[in-house]
């Protein structure tokens, strides 16, 4: 009876470890999938922003809100919160508001430092030059993000599946070692 209980307990523990391992693997895999997806959305919204600025001549706070439509949280927050800060405080410059929002939101996204640098660099000129120049800067940012996206897709193909199986297999290895 006692022997049977201990076997049951061990079995239960093993199942737990395997589940946890699998979960870790999936979470890791999801971060790759999310990153490429968020990058794609970000590029779309920058395209939209470019149109609003260059052809629509929309004022920047409105243009930011319009470009955030169709994007998901937390990414859309970068645009809406910046617009909000500009409308409310009136004490921050555009660059400061942009920077502050990105710092706040970044932790909740699957994006990395390189993309952050691209956006921050773009924030230093956003709004404050003529339409032609704005277009150039926005296109440059899109180009840079696109190359990040291509890399992200490649990484996703390579590592997402790997992590999914690696999590489970790793957990099984641990279980075997422990037995």
């Amino acid at each position, binding site marked *: 009876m006692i022997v049977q209980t201990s076997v049951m307990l061990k079995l239960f523990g093993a199942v737990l470890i395997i589940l946890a391992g699998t979960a870790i693997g999936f979470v890791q895999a999801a971060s790759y999938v999310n990153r490429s997806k968020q990058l794609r959305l970000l590029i779309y919204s920058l395209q939209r922003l470019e149109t609003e*600025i*260059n052809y629509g*001549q*929309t*004022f*920047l*706070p409105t*243009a930011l809100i319009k470009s955030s439509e169709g994007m998901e949280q937390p990414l859309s927050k970068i645009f809406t919160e910046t617009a909000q800060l*500009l409308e409310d405080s*009136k*004490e921050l*410059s*555009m660059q400061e508001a942009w920077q502050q929002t990105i710092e706040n939101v970044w932790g909740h996204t699957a994006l990395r430092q390189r993309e952050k640098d691209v956006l921050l660099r773009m924030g230093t000129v956003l*709004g*404050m*030059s*003529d*339409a032609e*120049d*704005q277009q150039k800067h926005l296109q440059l940012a899109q180009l840079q993000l696109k190359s990040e996206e291509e890399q992200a897709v490649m990484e996703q193909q390579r590592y997402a599946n790997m992590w999914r199986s690696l999590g489970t297999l790793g957990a099984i290895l641990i279980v075997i070692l422990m037995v």
Partner: protein
Amino acid sequence: MLDHIIHILPYELKTIVNQLSQHIKNSLEEIRIRENRPLEISHHGSFHYVTEKGKTVLDSRQAYHPTQEQCRKLLERITNYSLYAMEEELRRGYITIAGGHRIGIAGRTILEGGHVRGIRDIGGFNIRIAREVLGASKQLLPKLFGGPSDSLQSTLIISPPQQGKTTLLRDLTRALSYGDYRKHAMKVAIVDERSEIAACVRGIPSFDVGPRTDVMDACPKAEGMMMLLRSMSPEVIIVDEIGRVEDAVAIREAAHCGVKVIATAHAYNIQEAFGRSEIRTLLQERAFGSVVELKRNEQGFMHRIISVDRMLEQNRQNHGFFSLTKKAGS
């Protein structure tokens, strides 16, 4: 009145302007902000520098020096963070903000084919405070009616700069449009080439120019007058600062259509105005029924109304009075 201006100033400048004495605030005409140079205001026709505590001084070294960052923030707020949407305004060199205040800007110009396309590296701002003086035209308005049918006469208002021409013109517009005099509200149209009369922000007038008033904003005067004649069937057209050949053509066209024109022109007095060939031709053709000379003093506006008929008659009789200036002008 200063609310809209306080609103766009960066924090440090906002504090300084708020500390100015009430007396100065009431008569503030300009705030001049130049990057890293003394903060200057003009009021009552004189100028002062302003210290960090909001005191007015005459020694520029004691004055507050706005920083580069403050200037950048000011520019961002004036343009609503969207310099790219202000290309037209930058080409003209000033931006009109809510409340009708105009902000002149100076910096390095961008040229394209020899013409100014815009301004970058903006380092100087001149905030001109616009004041709406309701009732400024009260005394003048009844005197503009006359002639055989006792109707409104086409009028040319002449005065030196800074004497309140635009303020008077704006109030005339408002009064005609509301029908303040004789209860006959007229259809009024403004060609506001420099966005000064109605001070439109995105097409909506900042000033009360009356319920029956249409504004063609930022439009060349001659073209605007023609467009309004065709599109808005006005009874009166209001236009600022005439003087070019095209303007004269458009005014003649308006006269043919039976539309009255109230226009202003830069000149110290009627002799000087008569010296300008386009204006002289218009007067000789009797495109205007009367001329108003405007001066401003402590009490308010001073004006002298001259009937064009009588003036030309006089000129013919003692042909020496205007002929001198005529020669000088041509």
